[in-house]
């Protein structure tokens, strides 16, 4: 009996295995494409989730890859030099580096990657990307402000074609503000409200003390998180609250000074006062975002895409509906603390000249085509022409533009930024749990951070 079962099992396994092996598809984008003949070129385009739909999330079947599939389809039809086939894949943000590193080591990086520049800068330093200066023309330079070009320039070369930006701010629940008697601090529906630091502390205190418990049970004034590196740009902004320079001209961290310690001390102070959610050391930005949307937090972090998604979720009934508005991160000087994620496409060095050239042409096509660039309205467009076209439809574009003078480059374009992110949150965890003082926290971050930067500099092709 057992013998028969075993043999059947073995035969079945053998059959399935051979069937599966036979069905093995050829990995697209490998160097075995017929690039020399100039006929068949297969590109792999990867992106992390950005926006849904081609131009708008309300389109039927809208998904994260809709825009890129549409752009790919048009490119395949309109491109004359080669017969191109573009495969689009969406990669989860947390899976990006694992997939890229294995594929880079395996010699099969994707041809094009669309992502926030800050998350991909290290690949430029590692020499995994090719410069794309040759596809940037004067028309693009004139339409896109210089600060975005600075953001995508490493050394002397442009590595990402700026497509849209995603400014980071606070989001707040205006109804909770009202309930706590904070009407005078509520900004307009289409405004990014700026509070002074003193006002902000007053707001936190009032929310803590006056928020009606029967309506907002288990709610806290502000979201604070340090579980991992996700959303750490807001933590970096808080560390600049008292005017810290952060990076010096040599790209070294200079957070360990009086202003840096004051900022860390402020974070600990609001945490200890109960102005934030408890357990910040074990809470992620995802958790905070969900808590805010479920009205357990009055103030949380957001960016333009998250803000639009939150409003869409409320409209569709996926999340409780409330009056959500925007505010700037305050600072001691009174100026808002503002930063932005520039998103754009980069071209990987696949060692295949034809594929690299076609990839560059695809990036130029999707980043300059008058119809396609309209999709940047899902975030905030980097092109003045698109901002002008859609400013009536989205009044926030003007508000974000007003913040532009206060934007700081949070990465400093330093090498090793990804590893640098791994250094910050353990220090913040130590701060919140009381294992380190504010002074020790900034000292630890600076010491360990500068080690990371030094090591990365030694391996950076840009610093050589």
């Amino acid at each position, binding site marked *: 009996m057992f013998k028969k079962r075993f*043999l059947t099992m073995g035969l079945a*396994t053998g059959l399935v295995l051979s069937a599966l092996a036979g069905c093995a598809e050829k990995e697209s984008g490998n160097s075995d494409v017929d690039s020399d003949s100039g006929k068949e070129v297969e590109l792999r385009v990867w992106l992390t989730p950005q926006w849904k739909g081609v131009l708008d999330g309300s389109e039927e079947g809208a998904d994260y890859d809709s825009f890129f599939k549409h752009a790919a389809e048009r490119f395949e039809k309109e491109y004359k030099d080669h017969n191109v086939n573009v495969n689009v894949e969406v990669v*989860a943000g947390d*899976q990006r580096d*694992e997939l890229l590193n294995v594929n880079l080591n395996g010699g099969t990086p994707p041809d094009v990657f669309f992502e926030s520049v800050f998350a991909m800068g290290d690949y430029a330093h590692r020499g995994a990307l090719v410069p794309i200066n040759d596809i940037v023309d004067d028309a693009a330079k004139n339409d896109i402000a210089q600060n975005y070009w600075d953001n995508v320039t490493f050394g002397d070369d442009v590595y990402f074609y700026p497509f849209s930006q995603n400014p980071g701010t606070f989001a707040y629940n205006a109804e909770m503000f009202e309930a706590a008697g904070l009407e005078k601090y509520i900004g307009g529906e289409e405004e990014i409200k700026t509070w002074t630091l003193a006002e902000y502390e007053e707001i936190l205190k009032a929310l803590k003390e006056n928020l009606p418990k029967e309506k907002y049970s288990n709610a806290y004034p502000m979201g604070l998180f340090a579980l991992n590196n996700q959303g750490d740009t807001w933590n970096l902004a808080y560390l600049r609250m008292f005017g810290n320079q952060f990076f010096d001209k040599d790209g070294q961290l200079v957070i360990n000074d009086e202003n840096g310690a004051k900022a860390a001390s402020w974070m600990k102070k609001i945490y200890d006062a109960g102005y934030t959610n408890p357990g910040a050391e074990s809470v992620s930005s995802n958790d905070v975002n*969900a808590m805010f949307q479920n009205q357990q937090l009055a103030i949380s972090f957001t960016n333009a895409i998250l803000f639009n998604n939150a409003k869409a979720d409320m409209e569709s009934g996926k999340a409780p509906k409330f009056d959500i508005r925007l505010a700037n991160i305050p600072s001691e000087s009174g100026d808002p603390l503002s930063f932005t994620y520039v998103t754009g496409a980069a071209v990987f060095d696949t060692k295949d000249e034809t594929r690299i050239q076609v990839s560059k042409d695809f990036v130029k096509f999707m980043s300059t085509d008058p119809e396609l660039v309209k999709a940047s309205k899902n975030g905030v467009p980097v092109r003045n022409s698109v901002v002008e076209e859609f400013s009536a439809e989205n009044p926030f574009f003007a508000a974000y533009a007003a913040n532009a003078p206060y934007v700081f480059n949070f990465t400093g374009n330093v090498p090793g930024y990804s590893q640098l992110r791994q250094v910050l949150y353990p220090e913040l965890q130590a701060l919140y749990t009381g294992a380190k003082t504010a002074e020790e926290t900034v000292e630890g971050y600076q010491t360990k951070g500068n080690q990371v930067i030094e090591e990365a500099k030694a391996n950076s092709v840009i610093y050589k």
Partner: protein
Amino acid sequence: MFKKKAKKREKIDIVFNIIVIFFAILSLFPLYWLVTSSFKNSADVVKMPPDWFPKTFTWSNYADVFSNQPAFTWAYNSLVVALVSTFALIIVSALAAYAFSKLKFKGKNILFIIFISSLMIPKEVMIVPLFRIIQDFGMVNTLSGMIFPNVATAFGVFLLKGFFDTIPDSLREAAKIDGASEFKIFYKIMLPLAKPGIGALFILNFVQVWNDYLWQLVVGQSKDSKTLMVGIATLMQDLNPNFAYKMAGATVAAIPMLLIFIFFQKYFTKGITLGSDK
């Protein structure tokens, strides 16, 4: 006197049972919370005080998981990868283990030590070279790319050799005298006797492959070639405030494993306690 002692012992047993039941409930609570929350709407999941049982019962979270994502394809992929690689591993391991246990050949012990030594190399170290091999075979984005590396592991050989070692050599010798070939002895006599070991290996390997994340992530790069664990992980990372939806995704990933454990508990326990008795 004896009665009194028995009564006292009974009382102690009751106390211990109560403690055990308490901890059993405590450890089952996360699972209960996961499953019940998946039937709530988003706001009810974070409600304070919580609803210990869903007041409004909805299937919409499951409908969303299966309609927004190719979750059926992911589940199918997981099942095929886990089943096929486990069956293949059992065949390969049983043959190798039998050879190491019963056959006499030169360098057997050294070869076995080399085999066992490979268990000390973490899988993560081998990811890149393994990926290159799979890539050269054109198996990226295929299920076979996920299956084959799981077949070539020394753990099965190690486990089954232990079982074959416990079977007396006299059985093999008797069969040989009766004229049975080596392969006949293997599948007619030895394999049926090693059934508990095969069961334990099946369950242990199935669980390991089902829960494997990194390898399946790098091989299954396209949406339709992902497995359930990798696919569901992308849901968890989504900045979606709907906890109930995420709970539904996590339940979908957990249920098959739970069923496997319930049905094969005997073998699972056997696998864990292997070698603990003489």
